[in-house]
């Protein structure tokens, strides 16, 4: 048994690579992610669309659709009984993996419109989850489902139990999704851009709800988002991703007050701040995210980086090293000798 897991760590991802083998070539959606999720803490995964954050999250539950698959790395999950399970190598379809899905680690998705079965009643879908993982009778499961619906703030839960997804608004559907995800009291909730498809007021309500439930159920939350405002509001830890790698991780104050990686710095600078009057345009990150099939050699960010050092950044990929108050993968803070 490995003993390197950090105390308090619930999930420890190291060197995770999830690649998509398409007809046009291999898309390295996740290419060497190192990340730790701690118990009872909220970690936000921040990054532009297409940076691999969703795929990384889906890799944890092993629900990446073909032609994608995990090619390397470990996802060490520490179960409640102290066992450590490597999810990256768990057999697809095994009872062990299915036990963890839904019961230990639950997930909610971006599109509440399409993430619920379209022609099954909401209540039935929740009851189904409860019955899958817990030894309760159907009637008990129904009562619990109604209680959950009530808990996530759905009015008239007893009636909504009988409702179909298309009868609910987007916000209500996302609440129902949350109720379903939390129905087995998971230890980790992965929320993949849960508010992107919702309008602004609903977004705030859903985020508040997740934060509230996190305290109540004493669970860890992994929130995936591209919205810096969301991060500032709910995060305790932050990991910034760029082209399939974590480029900087640390607690929320370190990332916001003292960002180290040029990408993080550029991100922070691109946000308008109330009270700060600046003339001219907001600074934007130059260039565009490279095509996934045309990854730059070395540090993937070097093509857009103002501090890129020719001969250094294009030869090898930087590792995460401590810098400032966080850990950063950038040659400004480490020697180019570490990684090939």
């Amino acid at each position, binding site marked *: 048994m490995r003993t390197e897991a950090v105390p308090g760590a619930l999930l420890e991802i190291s060197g995770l690579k999830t690649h998509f083998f398409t007809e046009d070539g291999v898309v390295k959606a996740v290419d060497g992610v190192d990340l730790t999720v701690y118990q009872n803490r909220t970690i936000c995964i921040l990054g532009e669309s297409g940076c691999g954050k969703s795929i990384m999250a889906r890799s944890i539950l092993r629900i990446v659709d073909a032609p994608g698959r995990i090619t390397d790395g470990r996802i060490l999950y520490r179960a409640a009984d102290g066992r450590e399970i490597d999810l990256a190598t768990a057999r697809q379809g095994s009872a062990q993996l299915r036990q963890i899905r839904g019961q230990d680690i639950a997930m909610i998705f971006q599109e509440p419109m399409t993430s619920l*079965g379209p022609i099954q009643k909401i209540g039935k879908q929740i009851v189904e989850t409860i019955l899958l993982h817990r030894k309760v009778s159907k009637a008990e499961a129904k009562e619990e489902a109604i209680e959950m619906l009530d808990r996530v703030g759905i009015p008239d839960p007893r009636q909504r139990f009988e409702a179909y997804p298309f009868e609910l608004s987007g916000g209500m559907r996302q609440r129902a999704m949350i109720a379903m995800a939390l129905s087995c009291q998971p230890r980790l909730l992965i929320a993949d851009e849960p508010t992107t498809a919702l309008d602004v007021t609903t977004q705030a309500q859903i985020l508040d709800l997740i934060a509230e439930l996190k305290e109540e159920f004493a669970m860890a939350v992994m929130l995936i988002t591209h919205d810096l405002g969301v991060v500032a509001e709910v995060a305790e830890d932050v990991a910034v991703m760029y082209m399939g790698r974590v480029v900087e991780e640390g607690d929320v104050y370190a990332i916001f007050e003292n960002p180290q990686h040029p990408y993080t710095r550029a991100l922070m600078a691109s946000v308008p701040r109330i009270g700060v009057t600046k003339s001219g345009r907001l600074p934007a990150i130059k260039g565009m995210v490279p095509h996934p099939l045309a990854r730059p050699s070395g540090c993937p960010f070097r093509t857009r980086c103002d501090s890129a050092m020719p001969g250094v950044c294009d030869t090898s990929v930087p590792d995460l090293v401590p810098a400032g108050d966080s850990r950063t993968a950038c040659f400004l803070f480490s020697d180019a000798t570490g990684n090939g």
Partner: protein
Amino acid sequence: MVPTLLLVSITTFVIIQLPPGDYLDSLAAEMGESGVDNTAVLESLRRQYGLGEPFYVQYFKWMRGILLEGDFGLSFEKNRPVTDLIWDRLGWTFGISIMTLLFIWLTALPIGIYSAVRKYSVGDYVATFFGFIGLAIPNFLLALVMMYVAFKFFGQSVGGLVSPEYLGEPWTWAKFVDLLKHIWMPIVVVGTSGAAALIRIMRANLLDELYRPYVVTARAKGMTEFQLLLRYPVRVALNPFISTIGWILPTLVSGEIIVAVVMNLPTTGPLLLRALLVQDMFLAGSLILIVSMLTVVGTLISDVLLALVDPRIRYQ
């Protein structure tokens, strides 16, 4: 529904009126040849059914007979009321059609699901290949081929629904077994093209659903692949599948009629063909009318069924 049925009855009547002359003309010619003078009988028949009167008068007389007295008219050739001749045969036609529908479902559903889930596997290619063959062989040709094969290689007597020795016998267990030995062939023949079509439809529907977010949700809940497959995507893909009954029933009835002619089944097919060829207008008209109407009703039932299983349609 009612306008459709009305339209069906008018269309049918127009069609059976199309041939120039009528059966009584040929009957009169025949009688004239044999030297029998039956002008009075012919005249009374003409009056009763309004032959020679304007089209709409004939139509109303015919419809009034059907609606008020259940009288579909007279089969001139057999000189018996149409109602005496048709019900048995209609029963067999629809019996075979419905059994064929069941056969199609029982084969198309699992094969379609398999083809979609194991896309581009050997099994999928085999199913696709047979699907195309099934679509390309016309019913009657398949019937001929199967009859030939059954006779040549298995020495089985073909044609009819029971062996000759059971014809006209009361129903016994042995006769029933004999019926089963015969009836599978028309069912398979009529059902092949429909099954082929439905396999393709099911496969396409399911492929549409298989990669939807809700499938991922179900997987993330910890369901087994088989559980989630049947409970979510298959369940959703089933709805357009059910609505296909609407169009498949007419084609089954059509197919049954043709196959019945080839296989000499005691169903509507041979009777209708004969009636059309000798211009036995009320018999032909009644058959077309009833077959069409029952099909329309069947389609309606499939619509109702669809609304029952799909809450989204109910909601609209």
